């Protein structure tokens, strides 16, 4: 097929206060191809897409599209739609209470002579669109009665019907099951064959190799490279995403490990949560640091949330220090001696308007109960202790948490758990979005706590970090625990475990 360039984005730069989100990023899309956009969290995938669709305005750079004069500068999603750029997001942006036909046509309904909505024409045209795309549904059905996959496809159909030349699919598959994904891919191939350019953002490697033609990899807001799918083996893709040149992967040895005792702290069997994680077993011993690795969306967060009871497990049993634990809600796990530092700091961790002191003592106070209030002097003492120990940079212990930088907020939340002296601490991406110095501090702390007998689960996108700290790693892929690695772990072995499938 003749390669005709549909869209070029060159030298796109976008800064937010204090952060360079995009640094001379680029993206080239040809007509009739499915193009995967890949990268870990914070790589700048969504930012570059938002710059294209007009959600953000870029600071610098050039966007050219076939059939449009000059450099494109979209100010709103509507503007982008007008020149044929449509986006379908992970959460379906449709109205669940309306029929499929209405969702396809709302805002541009066919009208009758007296300017009223022409339902007959609308339903007929909607049915035709759905039939053409080989989606077998009744166009008059209410959207919420349809499966998420169908809803996702209706969103795509809406975009296609609005004469889109370029379709952006932003993680559309994360809430779909295998069958539904297959349906979606079929639709994507149909569209590709009709000449639509598709940008496909996903975390699932399998899917990339199944449906995509080309891959653009991004890291830290920068363009890493553009590859043809057939030329790029999985391990190399993972290496590109995680920023390791495959050739000089030096194996990093864990530094001075303390021997682990045989006492089992937590023993979980067949835990699962419908829709997010398939049944898994997990066991950790006293003083052990276990890593959970896998790409984002592979189920690593979901696994620990399930262990902790943040998402109530729907099957299986859990035993903590030999005693059966029914973790209906987090407080049960806290009382049993668990701590959990969630990955979404803003939504699940910070209580922004409260002071550093209050944030630090929160979990301990919750464990002790309402009537055993920790005396104010004791609170201050503890807060000062941890501000000192973790070197939290704050104006005072009474400063509201949301005035601190991300890394320091993270330390405060870590302090919240250290307060409770947990036997078992889960750290879900504790180092995300914080500077390199703090990262090293975190790693040191983890090792120190483990030496003191604490069992720790450590999750990180950076394999290097985990190699330094962990004695063992659970490997997750597509919502399932696929194995464990032990003994001599190298970046290479971990990466190929993450990538799975074919080995080269």
């Amino acid at each position, binding site marked *: 097929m003749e390669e005709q360039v549909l869209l070029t984005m060159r030298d796109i730069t976008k800064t937010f206060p204090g952060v360079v989100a995009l640094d001379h990023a680029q993206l080239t899309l040809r007509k009739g191809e499915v193009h995967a956009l890949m990268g870990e969290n914070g790589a700048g995938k969504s930012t570059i897409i938002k710059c294209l669709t007009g959600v953000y305005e870029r600071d610098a750079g050039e966007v050219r599209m076939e059939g449009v004069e000059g450099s494109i500068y979209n100010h709103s999603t509507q503007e982008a739609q007008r020149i044929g750029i449509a986006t379908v997001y992970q959460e379906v942006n449709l109205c669940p209470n309306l029929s499929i036909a209405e969702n396809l046509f709302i805002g541009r309904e066919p009208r009758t002579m007296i300017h009223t909505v022409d339902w007959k024409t609308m339903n007929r045209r909607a049915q035709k669109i759905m039939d053409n795309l080989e989606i077998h549904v009744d166009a008059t059905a209410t959207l919420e009665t349809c499966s998420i996959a169908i809803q996702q496809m209706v969103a795509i159909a809406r975009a296609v019907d609005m004469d889109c030349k370029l379709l952006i699919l932003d993680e559309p598959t994360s809430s779909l099951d295998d069958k539904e994904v297959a349906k979606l891919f079929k639709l994507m191939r149909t569209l590709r064959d009709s000449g639509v350019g598709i940008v496909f953002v996903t975390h699932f490697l399998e899917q990339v190799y199944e449906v995509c033609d080309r891959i653009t990899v991004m890291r830290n807001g920068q363009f890493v490279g553009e590859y043809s799918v057939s030329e790029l083996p999985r391990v190399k893709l993972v290496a590109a995403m995680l920023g390791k040149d495959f050739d000089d992967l030096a194996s990093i040895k864990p530094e001075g490990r303390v021997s682990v005792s045989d006492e089992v702290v937590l023993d979980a069997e067949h835990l699962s949560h419908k829709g997010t994680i398939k049944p898994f077993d997990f066991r950790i011993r006293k003083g052990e640091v276990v890593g959970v690795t896998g790409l984002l969306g592979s189920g690593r967060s979901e696994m620990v949330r399930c262990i902790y009871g943040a998402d109530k497990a729907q099957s299986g049993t859990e035993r903590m220090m030999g005693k059966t634990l029914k973790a209906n809600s987090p407080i049960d796990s806290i009382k049993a001696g668990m701590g*959990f530092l969630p990955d979404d700091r803003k*939504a*699940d961790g910070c*209580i922004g308007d409260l002071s550093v002191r*209050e944030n630090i003592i*929160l*979990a301990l106070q919750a464990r002790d109960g309402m009537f055993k*209030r920790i005396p104010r002097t004791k609170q201050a003492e503890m807060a000062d202790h941890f501000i000192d120990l973790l070197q939290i940079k704050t104006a005072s212990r009474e400063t509201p948490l949301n005035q601190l930088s991300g890394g320091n907020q993270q330390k405060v939340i870590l302090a919240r758990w250290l307060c409770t002296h947990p036997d078992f601490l889960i750290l879900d991406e504790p180092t995300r979005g914080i500077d390199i110095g703090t990262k090293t501090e975190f790693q040191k702390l983890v090792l120190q706590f483990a030496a003191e007998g604490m069992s720790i689960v450590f999750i990180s996108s950076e394999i290097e970090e985990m190699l330094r700290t962990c004695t063992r790693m659970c490997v997750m892929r597509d919502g399932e625990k696929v194995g464990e690695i032990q003994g001599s772990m190298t970046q290479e072995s971990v990466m190929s475990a993450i990538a799975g499938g074919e080995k080269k």
Partner: protein
Amino acid sequence: MNSLKKLTSKTLFLPLFCMILVLLINVIKSPDFFSIAVKNGVLYGRLVDILNRGSEIAILAVGQTLVVAVSAGTDISVGSVMSLSACGCCMLLAGYGVNSTTELAVPMIVGMLFGVLLGGVCGTFNGFLVSKLKIQPMVATLILFTAARAIGLLLCDNQITYIRYEPYKYLGNFIPGIPIPTAIFVTIAVIAVISLLLKKTSLGLYIQSVGINSRAARISGISSSKICFLCYLICGLCSGIAGIVASSRIYSADSNNIGLNYELDAILAVALGGNSLGGGKFNLAGSIIGAYTIQAITTTLLAMGVSTDQAPVIKAIIVVIIVVVQAPVFKAWMETRSARRLAARVAETTDEKEMAEK
């Protein structure tokens, strides 16, 4: 400029500012505003009157503050619940269907406790709907907003029940020998209990955590729905107490008029107190100052010849002004405006410089 900004950002700035403004207007209009006299062994004066009459609003504001903080919604049933608890209390004291009594059917304290208990039951109902069934607070409390008053009417057999028993009047008026209105003591007691609860237990911390970020609070081991439920229960109990005080003032249970329009006053007190109606951090002292400010406004309006029926017009306008000023949209608008003005000023000065250079 900077110091002004610092001053306005203090938590108690808004309530104190409003309070002082209202008092100033009063002083200008009637110079004898602050004078307090002793007549018949009790204190008289406008200030005493405001403190006395403001008791119910202050008690309601205490409960309402907690509800607003924890659920970002308001309990609009407080006025009706007041009326219900007053009716329940009088009904028990006088006996069902008795129009007027000088003899009590049960000890006074039992009747009063029953009234407060009714308030608690209403609070439980509201709390259940909001915390367990996750119904929007205002819709949930709308049910009792109408029903409570109607149930009160039923309890009193559709008439006004009078309790012509001297000690019953004490709570809303004076205890012989004490020159200060009893309602003030009741208010102080309620405020003391709640602030002790907030100070001595970690309830305050829990409420604020749930109000600010209920997901994070849950992860940290706080049961969000239990705390939410508790706040509605406290709010119901406060309404009950306020209802008894209001009933004691007129030594009767006038179901149609007790607590009428008080829900607006209570919400207004919370907003005037500098608390965001969006929930989160709260300041009890602010709400209480707000409550007395509102009573001062009401008293002032009455003194100016505005009837009780007409007063809501002014209060409604104040509510709208406060919520508009608090609204994020308005704040953002103001910020862009001041930024633009600053930019214009910078441009001007550079222009001037260039002119000067030329």
